[in-house]
């Protein structure tokens, strides 16, 4: 509609999550108005991240070195590992500032309907890591949905006898009203209630 190169930029931007055609057009026109240096800086940042960022050899987190800064941090509890599906989940747990152990990023969740089997995830690496590194507790922090729960059940079975296995609690979001809670979440909160 505009020119082949602008159309191509819009088409590339619409491939990003949450970006539709209109947003892509707005972004494209913003980049056209920007100085050449600004546009080149964005382009260089994308190229650099693709060139330098890789997965940590130990935990599967994103890193620019062979081993990520979390795995190398001696102040962390190296006997505690939290298992997450994606690096974005690791960032969410880090934001809580409540957890000082290590992580293990699986790269997804088991989903037989979608053809995702144990061998497609970093599960064997986790089992080896737990056996070899003297890990005492594994916290399963996969998503609280069907695939995440199935993955957690599978991991608990694989890790039985190797370490203490715990699962993130399920229940009501802090700051919300009880009347808006759905039946399943409220039921889980009730069955997981604790003594005060």
């Amino acid at each position, binding site marked *: 509609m505009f020119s082949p190169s602008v159309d191509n930029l819009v088409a590339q931007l619409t491939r990003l*999550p949450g970006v539709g055609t209109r947003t892509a057009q707005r972004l494209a026109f913003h980049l056209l108005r920007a100085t050449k240096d600004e546009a080149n800086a964005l382009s260089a940042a994308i190229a650099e991240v693709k060139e330098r960022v890789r997965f940590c050899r130990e935990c599967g987190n994103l890193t620019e070195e062979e081993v990520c800064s979390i795995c190398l941090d001696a102040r962390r509890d190296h006997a505690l590992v939290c298992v997450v599906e994606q690096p974005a989940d690791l960032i969410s747990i880090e934001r809580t500032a409540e957890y000082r152990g290590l992580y293990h990023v699986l790269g997804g969740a088991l989903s*037989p*309907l979608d053809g995702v089997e144990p061998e497609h995830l970093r599960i064997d690496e986790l089992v080896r890591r737990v056996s070899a590194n003297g890990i005492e507790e594994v916290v399963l922090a996969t998503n609280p949905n069907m695939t995440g729960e199935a993955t957690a059940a599978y991991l608990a079975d694989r890790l039985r006898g190797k370490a203490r296995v715990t699962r993130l609690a399920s229940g009501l979001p802090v700051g919300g009203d009880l009347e808006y*809670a*759905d039946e*399943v*979440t409220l039921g*889980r909160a009730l069955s997981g209630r604790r003594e005060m």
Partner: protein
Amino acid sequence: MGRTYRTEAVVLRSFRLGEADRVLHLYTLDRGRVGAVAKGIRRTKSRFGARLEPLSHVELFLHQGSGELGTITGVDLIDSHHAAREDPYRLGVGLIGLEAMLRLFTEQEANARAFGALTRFLELLDGAEPHETPPQLDPLGLSFQLKLLWLSGYLPHLTSCADCGSTAELAGYSPTAGGAVCSGCSAGAIALSQQGLTGMDSLLRRPLAEAASAGLAERAAREALRVVTSSYEHHGGFRLRTVPA
């Protein structure tokens, strides 16, 4: 011009869409197979909460716009079937049942009997006893799949030779012939024992609730699974991903 309607549905499958949405594959009472988007469902503050997980039996308010996918505007939970979802064995059986529905009932066309069989299967699955054998050999799961084949028009003929009509002892199953075959017609057929034939016949005649009491031995269950699998391959050209090869 879009419009909103209300229907009972079972969530068969869901996958991520964009930043916080999910696409749901639903089997509905009023329209058969329907696809819909649940907007914002992955956010913790979503009003849908955990009501739209696979296996859930719900009442939905759906807005059908001009596109292929509807949009879910409201949901009431009828049964979450969390007992089936939270046990690995039951979940394994449930996923096989859901995938069979997904593959066999692909049209937007109401089929109240198929919907009834699906909801009954899920109700019974909540109380199913886990077995030592793998989920694909579960009698309830096999019975449900045989009944789905029946409802799809692919009922295996098991009382006489499906090829020559002979009532002599049946020795195999031929998906091409559409049922059990006698020893004279069994070239290229799947070998079946008398135990397997009786077991399948029993599963087909009994209601789903009595599948577990049909006394299906492991050999008979394996043969029934082979018959179901080869029927899928022959009539639909697919294999279930949830059933290991």
